[in-house]
């Protein structure tokens, strides 16, 4: 291959790489380690983890919090960990929301948007159900009340029924 052709081939590869940049996280991919962004990461190894991205200005996020609190009550003893990651830029808005909702699960603020950018969340709210191996198994965009709640419960039951060795 001649030198100019090599340059064009390089440019083409670079362009392809740029277009693939920030692809949305899909089922089967390994979720970033929460310990990289969280101040006090709960031990998620070998457990089912629900990571929810929310914001205080997002109406469906407010609706989802009581549902997640109930999930925490029902499934925590069986090995479910819920981590709710706020994308609020305003720390006061975040604090007010947490004070009002009193969530029984772990809540963080991704203040520099490092995690949300890595995951490239497609909508607010979006929740990721991770298997025992830390891979994304199910993704839910938005929160549609009882319908979403029912789906998440079915998926958690499915994941809890899987053995660690049987997880893909």
């Amino acid at each position, binding site marked *: 291959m001649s030198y100019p052709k090599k340059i064009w081939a390089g440019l083409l590869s670079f362009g392809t790489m740029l277009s693939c940049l920030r692809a949305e996280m899909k089922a089967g991919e390994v979720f970033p380690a929460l310990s990289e962004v969280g101040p006090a990461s709960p031990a998620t190894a070998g457990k089912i983890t629900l990571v929810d991205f929310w914001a205080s200005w997002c109406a469906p996020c407010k609706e989802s919090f009581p549902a997640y609190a109930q999930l925490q009550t029902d499934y925590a003893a069986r090995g479910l960990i819920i981590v709710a990651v706020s994308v609020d830029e305003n720390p006061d808005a975040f604090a007010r929301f947490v004070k009002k909702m009193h969530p029984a699960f772990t809540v963080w603020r991704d203040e520099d948007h490092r995690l949300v950018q890595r995951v490239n*969340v497609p909508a607010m709210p979006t929740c990721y159900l991770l298997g025992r191996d830390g891979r994304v198994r199910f993704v839910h965009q938005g929160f549609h009340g009882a319908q979403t709640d029912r789906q998440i419960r079915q998926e958690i039951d499915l994941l809890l029924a899987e053995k660690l060795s049987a997880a893909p």
Partner: protein
Amino acid sequence: MKIIPFHRLVALLLTVPALAALGGCANPSLVRVHPWERATLTDYTMRPERDPLATAMGEHIYFSRESASGGRGVGGNGCGCN
């Protein structure tokens, strides 16, 4: 190694930034407002119908002029989830 002629080198140096710029415009991940950046867009002051009186007046003018009303509502609330 083959040496690139000067005019081709100049063309290349002009083409690369142009392609990069156009590529940036074409890539939606670089130009769209991300779902987590919509706090300002969901603010009350960004709502077109925040003043009921002004909305009613605007709707009356629209009806008087066009002999039609409504049909301007859109779904969603800026969360990117609808």
